[in-house]
């Protein structure tokens, strides 16, 4: 039976600033530039899951279940919050696209069928995209 990959896109809006607790404010300003200032984005999140095609339903993944999981585990935690100060699970982590992609993967992966999460993408702006495929991927 065929194995397919399905990708669904989600949206949230949040505030943040890039700041590392390891740096002085001068260093933060030098490393992160204008991103050190408080600002925000309309984020897009793409989640790719894989599954075997069910001959009866014609579906390879339960998108309703995926939507519910993403909504509960990611979107409701971050939508219209300040990522740099109001999200406990991100405390102490610079909220770069890289770290958000890895964090969202870590949150979501245990809630999905084992081995089904393939790819988690955070699109911060039209120009910047961050993709994580888990630790196993090279």
């Amino acid at each position, binding site marked *: 039976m065929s194995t397919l990959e399905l990708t669904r896109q989600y949206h949230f809006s949040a505030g943040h600033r890039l700041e590392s607790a390891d740096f002085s404010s001068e260093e933060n300003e030098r490393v992160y530039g204008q991103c050190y200032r408080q600002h925000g984005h309309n984020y897009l999140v793409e989640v790719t899951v894989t599954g075997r095609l069910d001959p009866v339903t014609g579906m390879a993944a339960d998108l309703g279940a995926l939507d519910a999981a993403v909504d509960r585990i990611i979107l409701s935690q971050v939508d219209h919050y300040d990522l740099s100060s109001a999200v406990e699970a991100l405390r102490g982590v610079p909220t*770069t696209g890289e770290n958000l992609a890895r964090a969202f993967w870590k949150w979501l992966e245990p809630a999905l069928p084992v081995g089904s999460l393939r790819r988690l993408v955070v699109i911060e702006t039209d120009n910047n995209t961050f*993709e994580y495929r888990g630790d*196993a991927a090279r």
Partner: protein
Amino acid sequence: MSDGQVYATRKFTFSAAHRYWRAEWSPAENRRVFGNLTVSHGHNYVLEVTIRGPVDAQTGMVMDLAELKRVVSDAVVQRFDHADLNADPFFLPGVIPTTENLVRASWDLLLPKLGQERLWRLRLWEDPTFYVEYFGG
């Protein structure tokens, strides 16, 4: 946090002119093979540069995107933006400036600056309906 690889992509745009023409062919042969591409025309190209690597534990970044912007602007965008690709040294010796050849030229320009470990993929859009991807090699 775990230390798996993260892929970061930044988009760049440039506008350039080109035409498809082989000097050793007759005009009729050129027209037969390349059609209306034999006439000089242009595109708004979009180049997506994907770098990969471990996330720096202190900065939370694979690479400073401002530095990436500097590197790609200096090496690729300034060279090809508002340029006639057929007159570029890459394409002078009879290399047709197709999207395929242009993405390879861009790769050759970026590889020495970014390194094999970091540079993962180039995706070059010729127009909103067509892109070519190159992973090197």
